[in-house]
């Protein structure tokens, strides 16, 4: 079954001067439970593609289906529920809420789902233990290292047990050791939880450890040479 099916996507941003077209007629598919890497030069719309797949942005034209469900057909409330329950995001700059502790950050997806605060924090503590940050649960993001911040962000992304994990250059801001560690964690969680993972990265070495590698350019997206991917 296809986890992701994006057909003929176009996206243009209203820039300060002329509108900026990010991509036109872009199509992308991904099998369930696959670990896919997307590579490509900066500015071709890799992050935008992840935002469209995750439903936090809408295409100007085209259609996005997640596990057979067309996002455009969902009401805002249903789309929010889908993001909460089935999609996890990891951003390049962790984007943790600075006023809250690691545990509180990880508890947010549960709190948004309506889980009582105490239970949400208990589940968050378990996840932090899983990602190796048991002792850092009461630390604010600024008291954590880059690698730790990203681990907390990963814990937050998988808090609700998503089927699809969208990771936008999760190692792009880390040193080599931290990057390897964070990527290792993503690999483990992918296998452990049977998720479909889409990873945007500039690191060929890390990309090579994924099931498929797609190469994105101004012309579109397709399988990288030598990759077994569908695109």
């Amino acid at each position: 079954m296809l986890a992701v099916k994006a057909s003929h996507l176009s996206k243009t941003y209203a820039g300060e001067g002329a509108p900026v077209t990010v991509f036109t007629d872009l199509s992308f598919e991904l099998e369930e439970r696959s670990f896919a890497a997307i590579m490509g030069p900066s500015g071709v719309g890799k992050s935008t593609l992840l935002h469209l797949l995750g439903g936090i942005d809408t295409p100007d034209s085209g259609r996005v289906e997640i596990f057979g469900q067309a996002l455009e057909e969902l009401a805002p409330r249903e789309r929010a529920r889908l993001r909460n329950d089935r999609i996890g995001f990891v951003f390049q700059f962790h984007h943790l809420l600075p006023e809250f502790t690691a545990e509180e950050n990880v508890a947010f997806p549960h709190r948004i789902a309506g889980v009582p605060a105490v239970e949400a924090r208990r589940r968050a503590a378990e996840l932090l233990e899983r990602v190796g940050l048991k002792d850092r649960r009461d630390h604010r993001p600024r008291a954590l290292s880059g690698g730790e911040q990203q681990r907390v962000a990963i814990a937050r992304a998988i808090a609700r047990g998503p089927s699809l994990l969208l990771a936008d250059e999760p190692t792009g801001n880390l040193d080599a050791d931290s990057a390897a560690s964070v990527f290792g964690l993503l690999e483990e969680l992918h296998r452990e939880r049977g998720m479909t993972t889409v990873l945007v990265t500039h690191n060929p070495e890390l990309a090579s450890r994924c099931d498929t590698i797609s190469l994105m350019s101004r012309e579109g997206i397709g399988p990288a040479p030598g990759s077994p991917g569908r695109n």
Partner: protein
Amino acid sequence: MRYEVSIALRYLAASRKRAHVALISTISVLGLAVGVAALVISLALLSGFQDRIRSQMAMRSPHLVVSPVRGDRLADPERVREVLAALPGAVSVDPVLEGRGWLCDASGRSCLPVRYRNISRGPLRLSGDGVAPARVSAPAAVRLGAEPGSLLRVLSARTRLSPIGPIPIAVLVRVAEIRRGSALEKAPDIEFPEATARLLSGVSTGARAYEARLADPQKAELVARVASSRLPGGYRVQTWRELNAPLSFALRLEKAVIFATVALVIVVAALNIVSNIALLVFEKKRDLGVLVSLGALPGSLSRIYLTLGALVGLIGTGVGLLVGVVASVLLDRFHAVPLPADVYLLTHVPFAVHPREVVLVGVFALATAVGAAVLPARAASRLAPGEAIRLSR
């Protein structure tokens, strides 16, 4: 606790660590507190004066007056007197006998037109020489050069026949008391005992109206309804509030105008809250985008900032109410604002805190603060999350 409230509370607490936001939010809270305190103190000041005016009104006016709907005489004065005397809480019932005439000094060289009536409150000490005692208004006494003990002559507009033809009815009175004037009542120029008033007005029995004083003037409306139900048609029963309706209206209008004027301070403070929260929305754009990526609804983002507005409102209003109430109570208790007693009837500026007004100010301030948050909260709910995250990289 909902997560929106947790975030709003944390934003409020965390903003103290960022100097610029802290300054703006402190100004917002302080501005609101100052506005609320100013409004509470202004209303307490006004209530202090108005309470005195109302108590004077209740003291100086008859609490109930029964008069005929048509004509200038009561059809059945005895029945009216009995009904009024039997009312619950009735302390005294007196007829109203009044008229117009001339008041002259004993020599008859100086006269002035006056309005007279029988004594409405407080007995007058008899002079002992059989001359009727009188209470004279201060302006009349000054114009006639009268002092307590002076003899004055009252000439009625009515006449009686004499061998030399019709002559005005005249009565000699002795000044027992000079009454200081008050803007609160349309007091007659001279008052004397009922018998003298009957003689001058020619009303030997009955009265133009009857008035009653009650033990508790605040129950006048209730007692008036009882009196109306016990009296036949053709009588008008008025309470002291109705008799002073124009003044009561003026007092209410004065309070409303002061409220509206001083409340502008709160409105200005609310504008501060708008800018403060709008700044926070801008600053937290990325976090809002992240919350949406985690499944938050636009309505929830809006609720965060409405809650923040409510929190700022609660703190500002709470502080303002506390300061306003405490200041008003202290100002009144320690007579902090003295008045020259020879100019005013009061020795100090009175302050009276009415709980109803405090609640009104609190509700107004809180509603204004939450209202101020609506605009930035709506902006937060319309945020494009993808763009917020993309642009904050």
